[in-house]
Protein backbone atom coordinates (compact mmCIF):
# COMPACT_ATOMS: atom_id res chain seq x y z
CA UNK A 1 0.00 0.00 0.00
CA UNK A 2 2.77 2.37 1.07
CA UNK A 3 4.62 1.46 -2.12
CA UNK A 4 1.60 2.37 -4.26
CA UNK A 5 1.22 5.78 -2.56
CA UNK A 6 4.87 6.60 -3.26
CA UNK A 7 4.51 5.59 -6.91
CA UNK A 8 1.45 7.86 -7.20
CA UNK A 9 3.27 10.79 -5.58
CA UNK A 10 6.21 10.32 -7.97
CA UNK A 11 3.85 10.29 -10.94
CA UNK A 12 2.11 13.47 -9.75
CA UNK A 13 5.51 15.18 -9.46
CA UNK A 14 6.44 14.11 -12.97
CA UNK A 15 3.06 15.21 -14.36
CA UNK A 16 3.49 18.63 -12.76
CA UNK A 17 6.91 18.93 -14.33
CA UNK A 18 5.55 17.94 -17.71
CA UNK A 19 2.71 20.43 -17.60
CA UNK A 20 5.04 23.42 -17.56
CA UNK A 21 6.20 22.62 -21.07
CA UNK A 22 4.07 24.78 -23.31
CA UNK A 23 3.51 24.11 -26.96
CA UNK A 24 3.59 26.64 -29.74
CA UNK A 25 0.05 27.19 -30.88
CA UNK A 26 -2.05 29.82 -32.55
CA UNK A 27 -3.33 32.35 -30.08
CA UNK A 28 -6.18 34.77 -29.92
CA UNK A 29 -4.17 37.94 -29.25
CA UNK A 30 -7.30 39.90 -28.34
CA UNK A 31 -7.23 38.19 -24.95
CA UNK A 32 -4.20 40.33 -24.05
CA UNK A 33 -5.98 43.64 -24.49
CA UNK A 34 -7.85 43.76 -21.20
CA UNK A 35 -5.03 43.40 -18.72
CA UNK A 36 -4.10 45.30 -15.61
CA UNK A 37 -0.92 45.54 -13.59
CA UNK A 38 -0.85 42.67 -11.11
CA UNK A 39 0.66 45.09 -8.63
CA UNK A 40 -2.06 47.68 -8.18
CA UNK A 41 0.45 50.32 -7.08
CA UNK A 42 2.52 50.01 -10.27
CA UNK A 43 2.85 53.12 -12.43
CA UNK A 44 3.98 53.75 -15.97
CA UNK A 45 6.78 56.24 -16.60
CA UNK A 46 8.02 57.90 -19.73
CA UNK A 47 11.42 56.88 -21.09
CA UNK A 48 14.24 59.25 -22.16
CA UNK A 49 14.03 58.21 -25.83
CA UNK A 50 11.86 58.95 -28.80
CA UNK A 51 11.64 56.83 -31.94
CA UNK A 52 14.78 56.83 -34.10
CA UNK A 53 16.85 59.05 -31.80
CA UNK A 54 20.53 58.78 -32.72
CA UNK A 55 22.10 56.14 -30.49
CA UNK A 56 23.64 57.07 -27.14
CA UNK A 57 27.35 56.36 -27.07
CA UNK A 58 28.61 54.20 -24.21
CA UNK A 59 32.25 54.46 -25.26
CA UNK A 60 33.64 56.74 -27.93
CA UNK A 61 37.17 57.06 -29.29
CA UNK A 62 37.79 59.61 -31.98
CA UNK A 63 40.08 62.15 -33.53
CA UNK A 64 39.31 65.76 -34.32
CA UNK A 65 41.26 67.74 -36.91
CA UNK A 66 40.99 71.40 -37.91
CA UNK A 67 42.51 72.83 -41.06
CA UNK A 68 44.93 75.76 -41.21
CA UNK A 69 43.86 78.99 -39.52
CA UNK A 70 45.21 82.25 -38.10
CA UNK A 71 44.86 83.77 -34.69
CA UNK A 72 44.91 87.56 -34.48
CA UNK A 73 46.41 88.21 -31.07
CA UNK A 74 45.14 91.39 -29.50
CA UNK A 75 46.97 93.91 -27.35
CA UNK A 76 47.95 92.98 -23.85
CA UNK A 77 46.15 95.09 -21.32
CA UNK A 78 46.59 95.59 -17.66
CA UNK A 79 43.66 95.50 -15.30
CA UNK A 80 42.92 99.14 -16.05
CA UNK A 81 42.67 98.40 -19.76
CA UNK A 82 46.03 100.01 -20.71
CA UNK A 83 47.77 98.47 -23.72
CA UNK A 84 50.98 96.54 -23.01
CA UNK A 85 51.98 94.91 -26.30
CA UNK A 86 51.36 95.03 -30.02
CA UNK A 87 48.89 93.13 -32.16
CA UNK A 88 50.40 90.13 -34.00
CA UNK A 89 49.11 87.28 -36.07
CA UNK A 90 49.94 83.62 -35.56
CA UNK A 91 49.37 81.14 -38.34
CA UNK A 92 48.68 77.52 -37.51
CA UNK A 93 48.93 74.64 -39.97
CA UNK A 94 46.11 72.98 -38.09
CA UNK A 95 44.94 71.76 -34.71
CA UNK A 96 43.39 68.65 -33.30
CA UNK A 97 43.72 65.60 -31.16
CA UNK A 98 42.21 62.63 -29.47
CA UNK A 99 38.71 62.62 -28.00
CA UNK A 100 37.69 59.84 -25.64
CA UNK A 101 34.51 59.55 -23.65
CA UNK A 102 32.51 56.95 -21.77
CA UNK A 103 28.98 57.24 -20.45
CA UNK A 104 27.80 54.26 -18.47
CA UNK A 105 24.33 53.81 -16.97
CA UNK A 106 24.82 53.40 -13.23
CA UNK A 107 21.15 53.14 -12.31
CA UNK A 108 18.66 52.16 -14.96
CA UNK A 109 15.18 51.77 -13.52
CA UNK A 110 11.75 52.65 -14.79
CA UNK A 111 11.51 55.60 -12.43
CA UNK A 112 15.10 56.83 -12.57
CA UNK A 113 18.06 56.61 -14.93
CA UNK A 114 21.47 57.79 -13.80
CA UNK A 115 24.52 57.90 -16.04
CA UNK A 116 28.12 58.59 -15.13
CA UNK A 117 30.68 59.68 -17.66
CA UNK A 118 34.32 60.56 -18.21
CA UNK A 119 35.83 62.47 -21.09
CA UNK A 120 39.17 63.64 -22.43
CA UNK A 121 39.61 66.01 -25.33
CA UNK A 122 42.97 67.12 -26.63
CA UNK A 123 43.77 69.98 -29.00
CA UNK A 124 47.35 70.25 -30.18
CA UNK A 125 48.19 73.38 -32.20
CA UNK A 126 50.55 72.81 -35.11
CA UNK A 127 52.78 75.83 -35.85
CA UNK A 128 56.31 76.93 -36.62
CA UNK A 129 58.16 76.32 -33.36
CA UNK A 130 60.75 79.09 -33.93
CA UNK A 131 58.46 82.06 -33.88
CA UNK A 132 58.13 84.21 -30.79
CA UNK A 133 54.88 86.16 -30.70
CA UNK A 134 53.55 86.14 -27.19
CA UNK A 135 53.23 83.77 -24.22
CA UNK A 136 49.78 82.50 -25.24
CA UNK A 137 51.01 81.56 -28.70
CA UNK A 138 54.03 79.87 -27.10
CA UNK A 139 52.00 77.71 -24.77
CA UNK A 140 49.52 76.77 -27.51
CA UNK A 141 52.46 75.51 -29.60
CA UNK A 142 54.23 73.76 -26.75
CA UNK A 143 51.39 72.40 -24.67
CA UNK A 144 48.16 72.76 -26.57
CA UNK A 145 44.87 72.63 -24.73
CA UNK A 146 43.22 69.71 -23.00
CA UNK A 147 40.08 68.94 -21.08
CA UNK A 148 39.54 66.03 -18.71
CA UNK A 149 36.27 65.73 -16.93
CA UNK A 150 33.59 63.80 -15.14
CA UNK A 151 29.90 64.12 -15.76
CA UNK A 152 26.59 62.75 -14.63
CA UNK A 153 23.08 62.85 -16.06
CA UNK A 154 19.91 62.07 -14.17
CA UNK A 155 16.63 61.38 -15.97
CA UNK A 156 13.73 61.40 -13.56
CA UNK A 157 10.26 60.67 -14.98
CA UNK A 158 7.35 61.67 -12.76
CA UNK A 159 4.66 59.85 -14.74
CA UNK A 160 3.94 58.82 -18.34
CA UNK A 161 4.35 62.40 -19.60
CA UNK A 162 6.45 64.58 -17.35
CA UNK A 163 10.13 64.32 -16.61
CA UNK A 164 13.15 66.17 -15.28
CA UNK A 165 16.74 66.03 -16.51
CA UNK A 166 19.66 67.15 -14.34
CA UNK A 167 23.16 67.30 -15.79
CA UNK A 168 26.38 68.19 -14.02
CA UNK A 169 29.99 68.11 -15.09
CA UNK A 170 33.37 68.97 -13.64
CA UNK A 171 36.23 69.71 -16.03
CA UNK A 172 39.92 70.36 -15.66
CA UNK A 173 40.86 72.52 -18.62
CA UNK A 174 44.26 73.91 -19.30
CA UNK A 175 47.45 74.13 -21.31
CA UNK A 176 48.56 70.56 -20.69
CA UNK A 177 48.77 67.34 -22.68
CA UNK A 178 48.99 64.25 -20.48
CA UNK A 179 51.42 65.49 -17.83
CA UNK A 180 51.13 68.44 -15.49
CA UNK A 181 47.36 68.34 -15.50
CA UNK A 182 45.70 71.50 -14.25
CA UNK A 183 45.38 71.32 -10.44
CA UNK A 184 42.01 70.23 -9.16
CA UNK A 185 41.36 73.58 -7.51
CA UNK A 186 40.83 75.02 -10.99
CA UNK A 187 37.94 72.64 -11.76
CA UNK A 188 35.18 74.31 -13.73
CA UNK A 189 31.64 73.16 -13.02
CA UNK A 190 28.72 73.15 -15.43
CA UNK A 191 25.16 72.08 -14.82
CA UNK A 192 21.68 72.16 -16.28
CA UNK A 193 18.17 71.38 -15.19
CA UNK A 194 15.30 70.79 -17.58
CA UNK A 195 11.65 70.08 -16.96
CA UNK A 196 9.83 68.54 -19.87
CA UNK A 197 6.93 66.67 -21.31
CA UNK A 198 6.94 63.60 -23.51
CA UNK A 199 3.82 64.07 -25.55
CA UNK A 200 4.16 60.74 -27.36
CA UNK A 201 6.84 58.35 -28.59
CA UNK A 202 7.90 60.80 -31.28
CA UNK A 203 8.15 64.01 -29.30
CA UNK A 204 9.67 65.20 -26.07
CA UNK A 205 10.10 68.85 -25.24
CA UNK A 206 11.53 70.64 -22.23
CA UNK A 207 12.79 73.95 -20.93
CA UNK A 208 15.33 74.78 -18.28
CA UNK A 209 18.39 76.69 -17.21
CA UNK A 210 22.08 75.94 -17.55
CA UNK A 211 25.30 77.10 -15.96
CA UNK A 212 27.72 76.73 -18.81
CA UNK A 213 31.14 77.57 -20.22
CA UNK A 214 30.15 76.80 -23.81
CA UNK A 215 30.65 80.45 -24.71
CA UNK A 216 34.11 80.26 -23.16
CA UNK A 217 33.29 81.98 -19.93
CA UNK A 218 30.77 81.41 -17.20
CA UNK A 219 27.23 82.07 -18.30
CA UNK A 220 23.71 81.29 -17.20
CA UNK A 221 21.41 80.70 -20.13
CA UNK A 222 17.96 79.22 -20.71
CA UNK A 223 17.90 75.94 -22.62
CA UNK A 224 15.33 74.18 -24.73
CA UNK A 225 15.20 70.44 -25.34
CA UNK A 226 13.38 69.03 -28.33
CA UNK A 227 13.60 65.46 -29.59
CA UNK A 228 11.07 64.96 -32.34
CA UNK A 229 10.51 62.42 -35.10
CA UNK A 230 8.15 63.02 -38.02
CA UNK A 231 5.22 60.60 -38.48
CA UNK A 232 6.98 59.26 -41.59
CA UNK A 233 9.96 58.48 -39.31
CA UNK A 234 12.31 59.67 -42.03
CA UNK A 235 13.13 63.03 -40.48
CA UNK A 236 13.53 64.40 -37.00
CA UNK A 237 15.05 67.06 -34.77
CA UNK A 238 17.51 66.55 -31.92
CA UNK A 239 18.09 69.77 -30.11
CA UNK A 240 19.40 71.09 -26.82
CA UNK A 241 19.45 74.73 -27.81
CA UNK A 242 21.49 76.83 -27.81
CA UNK A 243 24.25 74.23 -27.26
CA UNK A 244 23.38 72.04 -30.25
CA UNK A 245 20.72 71.64 -32.89
CA UNK A 246 20.53 68.80 -35.42
CA UNK A 247 18.10 67.88 -38.16
CA UNK A 248 18.08 64.10 -38.47
CA UNK A 249 17.58 62.13 -41.66
CA UNK A 250 16.97 58.44 -40.96
CA UNK A 251 18.15 56.32 -43.86
CA UNK A 252 17.63 53.22 -41.73
CA UNK A 253 17.80 52.57 -37.97
CA UNK A 254 21.49 51.75 -38.49
CA UNK A 255 22.34 54.58 -40.84
CA UNK A 256 21.55 58.22 -40.12
CA UNK A 257 22.59 61.71 -41.19
CA UNK A 258 22.57 64.79 -38.97
CA UNK A 259 22.81 68.41 -40.10
CA UNK A 260 23.26 71.21 -37.61
CA UNK A 261 25.63 72.92 -35.24
CA UNK A 262 27.20 72.60 -31.84
CA UNK A 263 28.66 75.26 -29.62
CA UNK A 264 31.77 73.88 -27.89
CA UNK A 265 33.72 75.77 -25.31
CA UNK A 266 35.39 75.98 -21.98
CA UNK A 267 37.62 78.14 -19.83
CA UNK A 268 41.25 76.94 -19.85
CA UNK A 269 43.70 77.69 -17.06
CA UNK A 270 47.00 78.91 -18.56
CA UNK A 271 49.75 77.75 -16.22
CA UNK A 272 52.61 76.24 -18.17
CA UNK A 273 54.02 79.23 -19.93
CA UNK A 274 54.58 82.27 -17.83
CA UNK A 275 52.61 85.25 -18.99
CA UNK A 276 54.12 88.60 -18.19
CA UNK A 277 53.28 92.21 -18.79
CA UNK A 278 56.96 93.12 -19.06
CA UNK A 279 57.45 94.22 -15.49
CA UNK A 280 55.75 91.48 -13.53
CA UNK A 281 54.46 87.94 -14.02
CA UNK A 282 50.76 87.56 -14.57
CA UNK A 283 48.80 84.93 -12.69
CA UNK A 284 45.22 83.67 -12.64
CA UNK A 285 44.96 83.67 -16.42
CA UNK A 286 42.16 81.83 -18.25
CA UNK A 287 41.66 81.37 -21.97
CA UNK A 288 37.98 81.73 -22.87
CA UNK A 289 37.71 79.39 -25.84
CA UNK A 290 34.45 78.86 -27.69
CA UNK A 291 33.83 77.40 -31.13
CA UNK A 292 30.69 77.20 -33.22
CA UNK A 293 30.80 74.05 -35.32
CA UNK A 294 28.42 73.93 -38.26
CA UNK A 295 28.49 70.42 -39.58
CA UNK A 296 27.08 67.35 -41.25
CA UNK A 297 27.41 64.04 -39.41
CA UNK A 298 27.08 60.53 -40.76
CA UNK A 299 26.50 57.83 -38.15
CA UNK A 300 26.27 54.20 -39.17
CA UNK A 301 26.58 50.76 -37.65
CA UNK A 302 29.76 49.02 -38.77
CA UNK A 303 29.16 45.78 -36.92
CA UNK A 304 26.31 45.22 -34.51
CA UNK A 305 26.83 47.76 -31.70
CA UNK A 306 29.97 49.36 -33.08
CA UNK A 307 29.10 52.55 -34.87
CA UNK A 308 31.17 54.98 -36.86
CA UNK A 309 30.62 58.71 -36.74
CA UNK A 310 32.11 60.98 -39.40
CA UNK A 311 31.63 64.69 -39.02
CA UNK A 312 32.73 67.43 -41.39
CA UNK A 313 32.02 71.12 -41.22
CA UNK A 314 33.17 74.64 -40.56
CA UNK A 315 34.64 75.73 -37.25
CA UNK A 316 33.94 79.37 -36.43
CA UNK A 317 35.99 80.90 -33.60
CA UNK A 318 33.49 82.56 -31.30
CA UNK A 319 35.86 83.42 -28.45
CA UNK A 320 39.59 83.10 -27.82
CA UNK A 321 40.13 85.88 -25.29
CA UNK A 322 42.24 85.90 -22.16
CA UNK A 323 40.89 86.93 -18.78
CA UNK A 324 42.71 87.63 -15.57
CA UNK A 325 40.90 87.03 -12.31
CA UNK A 326 41.50 89.99 -10.04
CA UNK A 327 41.09 88.04 -6.84
CA UNK A 328 41.80 84.62 -8.28
CA UNK A 329 38.14 83.70 -8.36
CA UNK A 330 35.67 83.14 -11.16
CA UNK A 331 33.52 86.08 -12.11
CA UNK A 332 30.39 86.51 -14.18
CA UNK A 333 30.48 88.80 -17.19
CA UNK A 334 27.52 87.40 -19.13
CA UNK A 335 26.61 89.02 -22.41
CA UNK A 336 26.33 92.53 -20.97
CA UNK A 337 29.20 92.80 -18.47
CA UNK A 338 31.87 95.44 -19.21
CA UNK A 339 34.87 93.89 -17.45
CA UNK A 340 37.88 94.29 -19.83
CA UNK A 341 39.65 91.22 -21.21
CA UNK A 342 43.38 90.89 -20.61
CA UNK A 343 43.79 90.13 -24.31
CA UNK A 344 41.15 90.13 -27.02
CA UNK A 345 42.02 87.57 -29.70
CA UNK A 346 40.31 86.41 -32.83
CA UNK A 347 40.62 82.80 -33.91
CA UNK A 348 39.71 82.70 -37.57
CA UNK A 349 37.46 80.01 -38.97
CA UNK A 350 38.47 76.86 -40.81
CA UNK A 351 37.15 73.48 -41.92
CA UNK A 352 37.27 70.56 -39.58
CA UNK A 353 36.60 66.82 -39.55
CA UNK A 354 36.05 64.36 -36.77
CA UNK A 355 36.03 60.58 -36.97
CA UNK A 356 35.08 58.31 -34.10
CA UNK A 357 34.34 54.69 -33.31
CA UNK A 358 31.56 54.19 -30.80
CA UNK A 359 30.03 51.42 -28.77
CA UNK A 360 26.37 52.35 -28.62
CA UNK A 361 23.88 51.72 -25.88
CA UNK A 362 21.12 49.07 -26.06
Amino acid at each position, binding site marked *: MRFNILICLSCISLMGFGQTD*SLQQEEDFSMYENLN*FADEGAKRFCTPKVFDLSPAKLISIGFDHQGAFDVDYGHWKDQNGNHLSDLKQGDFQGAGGLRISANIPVISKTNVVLQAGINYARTAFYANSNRNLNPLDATLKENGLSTAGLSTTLFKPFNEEHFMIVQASADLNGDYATKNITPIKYTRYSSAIIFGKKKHDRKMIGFGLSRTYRVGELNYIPVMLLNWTAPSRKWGVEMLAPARVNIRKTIS*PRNILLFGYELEGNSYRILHHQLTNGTENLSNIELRRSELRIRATWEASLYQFIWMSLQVGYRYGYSFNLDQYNDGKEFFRGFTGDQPYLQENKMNGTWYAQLSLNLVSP
Partner: protein
Amino acid sequence: MKQLLLLSLLWLSHSIGFAQNTEADQLLGVWEPSNGKARVKIEKIGEKYYGKIVWLKEPIDPNTGQPKVDKNNPDASLRTVPLKGYRMLKDFKYLGSNQWDNGTIYDPENGSTYKCIIKMTDNNTLDIRGYIGVEALGRTDVWKRLNLKK
Protein backbone atom coordinates in the same frame (compact mmCIF):
# COMPACT_ATOMS: atom_id res chain seq x y z
CA MET B 1 13.13 -1.48 3.56
CA LYS B 2 15.77 -0.70 0.90
CA GLN B 3 13.00 -0.45 -1.67
CA LEU B 4 11.11 2.01 0.53
CA LEU B 5 14.23 4.15 1.03
CA LEU B 6 14.90 4.21 -2.71
CA LEU B 7 11.36 5.29 -3.50
CA SER B 8 11.50 7.95 -0.79
CA LEU B 9 14.65 9.36 -2.37
CA LEU B 10 13.01 9.28 -5.79
CA TRP B 11 9.96 11.14 -4.49
CA LEU B 12 12.16 13.64 -2.64
CA SER B 13 14.21 14.37 -5.75
CA HIS B 14 11.05 14.90 -7.78
CA SER B 15 9.67 17.16 -5.10
CA ILE B 16 12.85 19.24 -5.04
CA GLY B 17 12.78 19.39 -8.82
CA PHE B 18 9.14 20.40 -8.69
CA ALA B 19 9.87 23.12 -6.11
CA GLN B 20 12.71 24.53 -8.21
CA ASN B 21 10.55 24.26 -11.27
CA THR B 22 7.79 26.19 -9.54
CA GLU B 23 10.28 28.87 -8.56
CA ALA B 24 11.62 29.04 -12.11
CA ASP B 25 8.12 29.14 -13.56
CA GLN B 26 7.32 32.32 -11.67
CA LEU B 27 8.63 33.93 -14.83
CA LEU B 28 5.69 32.65 -16.85
CA GLY B 29 2.96 35.15 -17.60
CA VAL B 30 2.32 38.37 -19.45
CA TRP B 31 4.61 41.34 -18.80
CA GLU B 32 4.70 44.97 -19.85
CA PRO B 33 8.02 46.80 -20.58
CA SER B 34 8.44 50.23 -19.02
CA ASN B 35 7.58 52.09 -22.22
CA GLY B 36 4.11 50.49 -22.23
CA LYS B 37 4.35 50.02 -26.00
CA ALA B 38 4.07 46.23 -25.93
CA ARG B 39 3.09 43.24 -23.85
CA VAL B 40 5.20 40.12 -23.80
CA LYS B 41 4.06 36.65 -22.86
CA ILE B 42 6.80 34.52 -21.35
CA GLU B 43 6.37 30.78 -21.78
CA LYS B 44 8.46 27.71 -21.34
CA ILE B 45 9.59 25.35 -24.05
CA GLY B 46 11.60 22.41 -22.80
CA GLU B 47 13.80 23.77 -20.04
CA LYS B 48 14.11 27.24 -21.55
CA TYR B 49 12.02 30.38 -21.36
CA TYR B 50 10.90 32.49 -24.30
CA GLY B 51 8.93 35.70 -24.57
CA LYS B 52 6.76 36.74 -27.48
CA ILE B 53 4.99 39.98 -28.26
CA VAL B 54 1.24 39.50 -27.78
CA TRP B 55 0.05 43.10 -27.81
CA LEU B 56 1.20 46.38 -29.32
CA LYS B 57 0.03 49.82 -28.32
CA GLU B 58 0.25 50.84 -31.98
CA PRO B 59 -0.28 47.60 -33.94
CA ILE B 60 -0.63 49.29 -37.33
CA ASP B 61 2.32 50.75 -39.23
CA PRO B 62 1.23 54.32 -40.14
CA ASN B 63 3.30 54.19 -43.35
CA THR B 64 1.70 51.04 -44.75
CA GLY B 65 -1.63 50.88 -42.93
CA GLN B 66 -0.85 47.21 -42.32
CA PRO B 67 -0.01 45.34 -39.09
CA LYS B 68 3.55 46.08 -38.03
CA VAL B 69 6.23 43.71 -39.24
CA ASP B 70 9.84 43.20 -38.19
CA LYS B 71 11.07 45.62 -40.87
CA ASN B 72 14.37 46.41 -39.13
CA ASN B 73 15.56 42.83 -38.91
CA PRO B 74 19.14 42.54 -40.27
CA ASP B 75 18.03 39.34 -42.00
CA ALA B 76 16.06 40.60 -45.00
CA SER B 77 14.05 37.36 -45.22
CA LEU B 78 12.51 38.07 -41.81
CA ARG B 79 11.38 41.64 -42.52
CA THR B 80 7.84 40.59 -43.36
CA VAL B 81 7.30 38.58 -40.17
CA PRO B 82 4.50 40.14 -38.07
CA LEU B 83 5.70 41.72 -34.83
CA LYS B 84 2.70 40.39 -32.98
CA GLY B 85 3.71 36.88 -32.04
CA TYR B 86 7.41 37.67 -32.56
CA ARG B 87 9.67 35.92 -30.06
CA MET B 88 11.86 38.71 -28.67
CA LEU B 89 13.18 36.87 -25.60
CA LYS B 90 14.97 33.63 -26.29
CA ASP B 91 16.78 30.76 -24.58
CA PHE B 92 16.66 31.81 -20.92
CA LYS B 93 17.61 29.22 -18.33
CA TYR B 94 16.86 29.44 -14.66
CA LEU B 95 20.02 29.82 -12.58
CA GLY B 96 18.40 29.98 -9.13
CA SER B 97 18.09 33.04 -6.89
CA ASN B 98 15.30 34.43 -9.12
CA GLN B 99 17.64 34.91 -12.09
CA TRP B 100 17.32 33.69 -15.67
CA ASP B 101 20.39 33.98 -17.86
CA ASN B 102 22.07 32.83 -21.08
CA GLY B 103 19.30 34.40 -23.14
CA THR B 104 18.94 37.18 -25.64
CA ILE B 105 16.57 40.10 -26.13
CA TYR B 106 15.69 41.53 -29.53
CA ASP B 107 14.83 45.19 -30.03
CA PRO B 108 12.50 45.52 -33.03
CA GLU B 109 13.07 49.30 -33.03
CA ASN B 110 16.59 48.87 -34.40
CA GLY B 111 16.87 45.18 -35.23
CA SER B 112 19.57 44.54 -32.62
CA THR B 113 19.89 41.47 -30.43
CA TYR B 114 21.54 41.82 -27.05
CA LYS B 115 22.67 39.40 -24.40
CA CYS B 116 20.22 39.55 -21.55
CA ILE B 117 19.77 38.60 -17.93
CA ILE B 118 16.43 38.63 -16.12
CA LYS B 119 16.15 39.22 -12.39
CA MET B 120 12.83 38.98 -10.56
CA THR B 121 12.88 41.64 -7.87
CA ASP B 122 9.41 40.72 -6.60
CA ASN B 123 6.60 38.50 -7.87
CA ASN B 124 5.34 41.19 -10.20
CA THR B 125 8.54 42.95 -11.27
CA LEU B 126 11.39 41.96 -13.57
CA ASP B 127 14.67 43.74 -14.16
CA ILE B 128 15.52 42.97 -17.79
CA ARG B 129 19.11 43.94 -18.55
CA GLY B 130 20.24 43.93 -22.14
CA TYR B 131 23.97 44.31 -22.53
CA ILE B 132 26.89 44.20 -24.92
CA GLY B 133 29.66 41.80 -23.96
CA VAL B 134 29.74 42.54 -20.24
CA GLU B 135 26.82 43.39 -18.00
CA ALA B 136 28.24 46.80 -17.16
CA LEU B 137 27.72 47.91 -20.76
CA GLY B 138 23.99 47.70 -20.81
CA ARG B 139 20.63 49.10 -19.87
CA THR B 140 18.02 47.75 -17.50
CA ASP B 141 14.34 47.98 -18.20
CA VAL B 142 11.74 47.22 -15.56
CA TRP B 143 8.83 45.03 -16.64
CA LYS B 144 5.59 44.67 -14.70
CA ARG B 145 3.36 41.60 -14.55
CA LEU B 146 -0.12 41.90 -16.00
CA ASN B 147 -3.26 40.04 -14.96
CA LEU B 148 -6.73 39.84 -16.41
CA LYS B 149 -8.86 42.82 -15.43
CA LYS B 150 -11.11 41.97 -12.52
